[in-house]
Structures are given as C-alpha cells and as structure tokens.
C-alpha cells in the first residue's frame, strides 16, 4: 500500500474524529468516564495516603513527605487510566473473534492504524476533560507539581500509548489462533498495573525490584512521567523512559508484524 504523507494524516485525523464523535454520542457514558470515575478513584487513593500518614511514626516515608505521596495518589490513577486500554482492546479482539475484521481487511487501511487513531483521538478527548480533576486537587492542596513539565510528560504518555496499542494488537492477533482471548487482556492489564507503578510507587519497592521495574518499558506509563512531573525524578529518568518505550516498540512491533502475517494467512474465520 503506497500512501502519501498527507493522505496518511487526513485518514488518521478522520479516524481520531470518529473516536471522539462516537464517544461524545453517549454523553452519560462520557461524563462517567471523564469525571465521575476519576473523582472516585482519586478520592479513594488520597484517603488511603492521608490515613497512612496520620498514623505513620515519621513525617517522611521512603524519603518523601505527605504532599509528595498525595501528588502520586492523585496523578497515578489518572495516568493509569490513560495508559490502559480495555475498551479498544476488547473491540479489536471482538472483531477478530467474530470475523467482522473482514470488512476492515477489505478496505485500504490497516487494522492497526484503524484502531490506533481512534484510540488516540478518544484518549485525547477524555484526557482533556479528566485532567481537570488532578489539576484542581493539586492546586487546592498545593501539591508539588511542576506544571511546566506537563507537556513533555504527556508526550511520553502518548508515545507510550503506541506501545499499549501494539500490545492490544498482539492480544487481538491471538484471536486468530484461539477463540477466547479475554483472559489475556485481564492478565496483561493487571500485571501492567503493578509494573507501571500505578498501584505502588516503584521507589517504595525493594531495591532489586525497583531496578527491574525501571528497566522494563512499562514504568514509562505511570511512574516515570509522574516522578518527573512531581519532582521525584529528574530529566535523566524521563530520557530513560523515552528510550525504554522506543526499544519496546521496536521489539514488540517486530513480533506483531510476524504474528499478524502468519495469523492472517491461516485465518479461517468462524464461518459466521
């Protein structure tokens, strides 16, 4: 498929647009996704950390103070939600499993691109709205957040989304070989919750685990951007993050190309 650069952008902007419009269509859904859920999750995490510090015998835990953890508790679920793909992954898996992928295969666009742009468009719009929650809380509690670092942090997160999408793509490719792949999604996303640092700040882990987690690319989803944003980490750490995502995209991308080609070749559909 030969495509010019302009056509590529036109096509993908249209898809991003599709992602946005589809999700605004169901406003109740959207309000929950962009506001209610972030407020709930942030609320619970903040309360947990407040309770921890209330009964803690020191003013600092692991070298950081209360405000620093509150900042983590407020922003980690926010980043965690951006960087986890449940909806589009299950949609993709469903397309493969049900055979409706055929309609996309017969169009001059790749399955990968089709969903990547929709996902990013959709993430963009929800992020735009749901960011109000952590920003408001941070300002109110005067949390240590370097707002000028926000753009580059979000850039890393967006870059990381490509990796997330490649993983979703790999899971849905499994649908060529297996009839049910839901369990892979669950297992993967739960593991990522831990590896990305959404659940516990990675710097609280035992040293050896901390090293391992920082070596893996998944910490670039939550921990690294957040550490940089809140001043727990420096620019060096952020660079490591970009570097990690790059090699992971290269490796997993290669895998997905291979598996995709093999999968499509032996694809038989369910006869529906």
């Amino acid at each position, binding site marked *: 498929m030969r495509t010019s650069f302009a056509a590529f952008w036109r096509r993908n902007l249209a898809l991003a647009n599709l992602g946005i419009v589809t999700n605004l269509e*169901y406003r*109740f*859904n959207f309000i*929950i*996704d962009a506001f*209610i*859920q972030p407020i*709930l*999750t942030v609320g*619970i995490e903040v*309360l*947990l950390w*407040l*309770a*921890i510090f209330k*009964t*803690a*015998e020191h003013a600092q*835990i*692991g070298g950081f103070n209360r405000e620093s953890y509150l900042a983590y508790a407020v922003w980690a679920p926010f980043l965690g939600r951006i960087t986890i793909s*449940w*909806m589009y992954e299950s949609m993709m898996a469903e397309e493969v499993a049900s055979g409706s992928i055929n309609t996309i295969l017969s169009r001059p666009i790749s399955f990968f691109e089709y969903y990547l742009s929709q996902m990013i468009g959709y993430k963009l719009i929800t992020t735009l709205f749901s960011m109000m929650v952590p920003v408001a809380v941070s300002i109110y509690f005067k949390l240590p957040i370097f707002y000028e670092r926000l753009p580059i942090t979000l850039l890393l997160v967006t870059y990381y989304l490509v990796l997330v999408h490649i993983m979703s793509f790999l899971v849905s490719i499994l649908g060529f070989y*297996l*009839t*049910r*792949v*839901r*369990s*892979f999604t*669950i*297992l993967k996303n*739960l*593991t990522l*919750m*831990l590896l990305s640092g959404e*659940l*516990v700040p990675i710097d*609280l*882990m*035992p040293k050896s685990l901390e090293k391992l987690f920082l070596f893996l690319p998944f910490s670039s989803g939550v921990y690294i951007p957040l550490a940089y944003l809140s001043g727990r980490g420096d620019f060096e750490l952020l660079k490591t993050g970009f570097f990690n995502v790059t090699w992971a995209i290269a490796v997993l991308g290669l895998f997905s190309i291979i598996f995709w080609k093999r999968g499509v070749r032996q694809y038989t559909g369910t006869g529906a």
Partner: protein
Amino acid sequence: MNNLLKYLSIYKAFFKASFAADIEYRLNFVFLIIAEFVWYSTQLILFEVLYRHTNVIGDWNLQQMRVFIFLALFVDSIYMILWDQNFLAFNDNVRKGTLDLLLMKPIDSMFMLSSQRISISHIPCFFITAAGCIWSLAQLPDFNWLKLLWLIFLVPAGLSVIFCGRFALNCTAILFTRADFLQYVWFSLFRLGLRPDAIYSGFLRIILIFVVPFAMVASIPARILLEPTQYWMIAWGIVLPFILVTLLKKYWRYCLSQYSSASS
C-alpha cells in the same frame, strides 16, 4: 418449597452447562486462573510494600491488615464464581438485543440475568482465599475461632452489597442504551470495599457503612473478627440484605418498564 426445588434444579443445569462451556477454552481457562492470582497478589503486594515503611495504617498492623485483605478477596471470589460473568455480559445483551430472548423465559428475570453463567475457573480462588484467611487468623496471638461463626451472617451481607450494587448499575445500562463505563465505575466503587474502612473518617465512614455500604464487604466482618464484638454491626449485617434486595427489585421493575428494545 416446590419453587425452590425447581430453581435448584435449574441452577444445577446452569452449572453443568457452564462447566462444559468453560473447559471448551482450555488456555483461556488457565489464564483466567492465573489472572486471578495476579490480582490477589497485587492487592497483597500493595500493603506488604506499604508496611515496609510504616507499622500501622488506620488502626491495624500488618497481621490484622492481612486478615482484612484475605477476607475481602474471599468474598470477592464467591462473587466472581456466582455472578460476575453474567454482569459482564449484561451490557452486550442490552446492546445486541439478546436481552429480549432472556426476558422471554418463564423464570424470574433477575435470576436468569444474574446466574446463568457460573465461573468454574474461579473455584480454585475460593479455596486459596479461604486458606489465606485461616492462615492470617492463625498468625494472630489469641484469636477466638468461634468468632468465625459470625461470618455466616456477615459474608452473605457483604455479598448482597456487591450483588445489588452491580445489578443496579447494570440496570442503568437499560436506561441509557450504552453504558459500558458503568462497569469501570463499578471497579472504582468496588475499591471502596477493598480498602479498610479505617482510612475513611467521620462522615464518609458513616456513608460507607449505611448508605453505600461497601464497608460490609470486608471491613465490618474483619472488625468483628479482630476487635471486641460490636453487636450493632451484626444486627445491621442481618437487616441489610433484605433492605437492599427489596430496593433492587423495585428499581429493576422500574427499569424494565422503561425498556424499549435496542433493535427496533
């Protein structure tokens, strides 16, 4: 009585069918079990890591917190076995219109919608979490094992909170056609139950006990086990399921009356 026997025999048939369906996808089956263990581990790891840096959270130490977490996971595992798959499928049923077919069955619609799939892959979790509970209780210096009997009332109470909460959220999907995000709200809400109520203070805690009673899932049962018995908690645990189920039935009837099938 006759009715009860009829439903039991239907349930037996559901169980058989679920078993047949579950082992159809062997790899998925195995992965679901693994995923469940990862999930349990994350919940444990969170507190194990936190307690590396502090001795008390709320008013519980690590040993007591473990009792709480295993209890929460134990209740969760029962919920997962009995209902979760059905609730996951609920939105799809609404969207694709297969809800129509389910509603046309001459048995209680709430039963049909909540219980036709039983998750066989979660049965191991039930035993593991039960063992975890026993183990964590055995670590306590002077635990009175007779207290476990209170769980006969409190576990069903906790389950009723999860069941009614989730069912009510799903009903809402009927009103709004598309509501897949309700299940993510559910996950957030459910987190309320997975955190000890000690982290919530004052007003909020009262809400969690009486209004959105997620404290009943594990916090209250854990308090009954770990602390001197407070009888009002047990009384509340006995009354609560009746209140919740009655409210849920009303709400369900209302939602059905609003239902206009998706495919017309």
